[in-house]
């Protein structure tokens, strides 16, 4: 009976599951003893895992940022911007008028946007796209 027959991946997986279950549920002192038998320490293993977690934090942060950018891009692409606001000068006039007429809009726009002069055409268009993506383009007809 002690002769081992053909290897069985399912059995190895079962053993691995069992080993991990043991590891995760055994009492703390038993775990510490098992670790010590292997010539290492709980602290050393924990430090290694926490270092891995620190890397995971950075990666997850980048993933979230990438998702947020993609989401913004998608919203912008889907936003309806009137043709008239594609004209740089009309768009600039529109942003300036909005800032002047609405305290709420004034709060939304940055100091640079309110002055209008420091904004490039691309900046103005970006503001228009942002407002459109938020569904917040009042008085467009009058532009």
């Amino acid at each position, binding site marked *: *009976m*002690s*002769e*081992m*027959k*053909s*290897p*069985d*991946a*399912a*059995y*190895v*997986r*079962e*053993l*691995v*599951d*069992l*080993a*991990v*279950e*043991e*590891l*995760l549920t055994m009492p*703390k002192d038993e*775990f510490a003893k*098992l*670790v010590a*038998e*292997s*010539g*290492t320490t*709980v*602290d050393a*293993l*924990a*430090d*290694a*895992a*926490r270092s*891995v*977690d620190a*890397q*995971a*934090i950075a*990666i*997850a942060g980048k*993933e*979230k940022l990438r998702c947020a950018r993609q989401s913004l891009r998608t919203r912008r692409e889907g936003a309806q911007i009137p043709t008239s606001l594609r004209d740089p000068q009309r768009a600039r006039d529109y942003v300036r008028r909005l800032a002047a007429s609405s305290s709420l809009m004034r709060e939304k726009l940055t100091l640079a946007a309110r002055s209008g002069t420091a904004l490039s055409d691309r900046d103005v268009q970006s503001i228009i796209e942002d407002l459109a993506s938020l569904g917040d383009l009042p008085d467009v007809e009058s532009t």
Partner: protein
Amino acid sequence: MASSPDAHQPLSAEAVADALGALDFDAWARLSVASKVRARVCTMPPEDLLREAITRLRSGRRACPPDVPLIVVIDQVMRSIADAALRSREPLEQNAGYESLDDLDVADERTLDPETACLARQVLQQIKDILADDPMAQEVFAAKTLGMSPADTQQELKISAKEYATTLRRIARRLAVLSLGDQS
């Protein structure tokens, strides 16, 4: 008593981050060892397995059940990743959802490839080697590899169900110690 509607909602990314921040050294050490054991039957290094599992939970790509201990969830995600890596040879899956822990179990023996079989052979041989000083463990191990049921094995070896379970646990511990000795 009726449970609240949110009782079974996955934890938010923020809640996962809080829960990870609350793990003590003992829990982190257990996760470290678990990753080493799981990596024995996987083509990924243990730290990659652990990092990917935590990243998925932190980013929300993998939902975290609220009613399961976090280290168990992380281990099950590692298990899922290890199986998927072996099955597909493709970049790690981007899937997010879960309905129960069973959904994290993606193993399908029929799809295992030659590399898995090779890894399994290696691990089985290593386990056989480390059981050299434990005749009962050798017998139980051999019976398992022959596909004998627990009941048949107990009858054949004239041992109780408790002795059988204890022996299996002993084998599992040996595997854990073997994995801890790996340089990775």
